[in-house]
């Protein structure tokens, strides 16, 4: 396993991503209105592990559309760090500033036609098992 670490700009929200081969992971540029405005690019590894550490009082759990995942936003600096749902997550490598993916060309992703069931199944199959270390 390789451990890739990152943080939001103010440093309050940190991420540690364990994955076997970063070069083998797909870098995704979701084309939804939220991800486009945030300039987000995400990676995930169902065989890896993600640890997210943040203060509950300093983190916004933003939900929209189907309200099926929490989009975690640092309330100190505004950075969108990760989305979580039912024990799995995707990491925004742009906000976390993870250099291992800096030169990778992202693949545009459009999920508009998914049903809620399809969206949930895709996330459970593709996202990374996550541990949340939540401070008060």
């Amino acid at each position, binding site marked *: 396993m390789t451990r890739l670490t990152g943080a939001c700009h103010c440093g309050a929200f940190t991420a540690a991503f364990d994955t076997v081969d970063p070069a083998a992971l797909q870098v995704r540029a979701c084309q939804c209105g939220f991800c486009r405005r945030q*300039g987000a690019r995400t990676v995930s590894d169902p065989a890896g592990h993600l640890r997210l550490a943040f203060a509950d009082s300093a983190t916004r759990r933003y939900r929209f559309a189907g309200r099926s995942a929490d989009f975690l936003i640092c309330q100190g600096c505004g950075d969108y760090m990760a989305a979580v749902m039912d024990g799995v997550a995707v990491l925004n490598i742009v906000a976390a500033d993870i250099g291992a993916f800096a030169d990778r060309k992202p693949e545009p992703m459009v999920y508009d036609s998914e049903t809620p069931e399809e969206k949930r199944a895709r996330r459970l199959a593709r996202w990374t098992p996550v541990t949340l270390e939540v401070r008060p």
Partner: protein
Amino acid sequence: MSGADVSWRPGGCHCGDVRFEVMTAETVEAQTCNCSVCAKTGFIHVIVPDSRFRITKGAERLTTYTFNTHTARHTFCSTCGVKAFYRPRSNPDGWSINARCLDDTAGLEITVEPFDGRNWELHADTLAHLSQEAS
């Protein structure tokens, strides 16, 4: 900037709490920036004078983040975190609008040039003219 091609164009954050309008021509000069804060959102800067920008909704919903010299006032929506505009250090008398947050870029010709914000002191003077009011 003058002529019939100049107009107010709306935009906003994702959740809709914060809305703005910016006056631009159809040809827009924009910058990406590789500094520590811009690189985390891929902010596409459209810098305009103070008179060509207005917040139309949700000023009270903004959170302000500052660091280093605390000159730039990085504002984001408290609900969805989106950075739609801010007061840049290079142009504290003007505004930088994030082209990603315009409702519609149809009909706009946006030319994006990289700005080397990691070496801000060496290059900031190249942006200063962008916030000057037309005389």
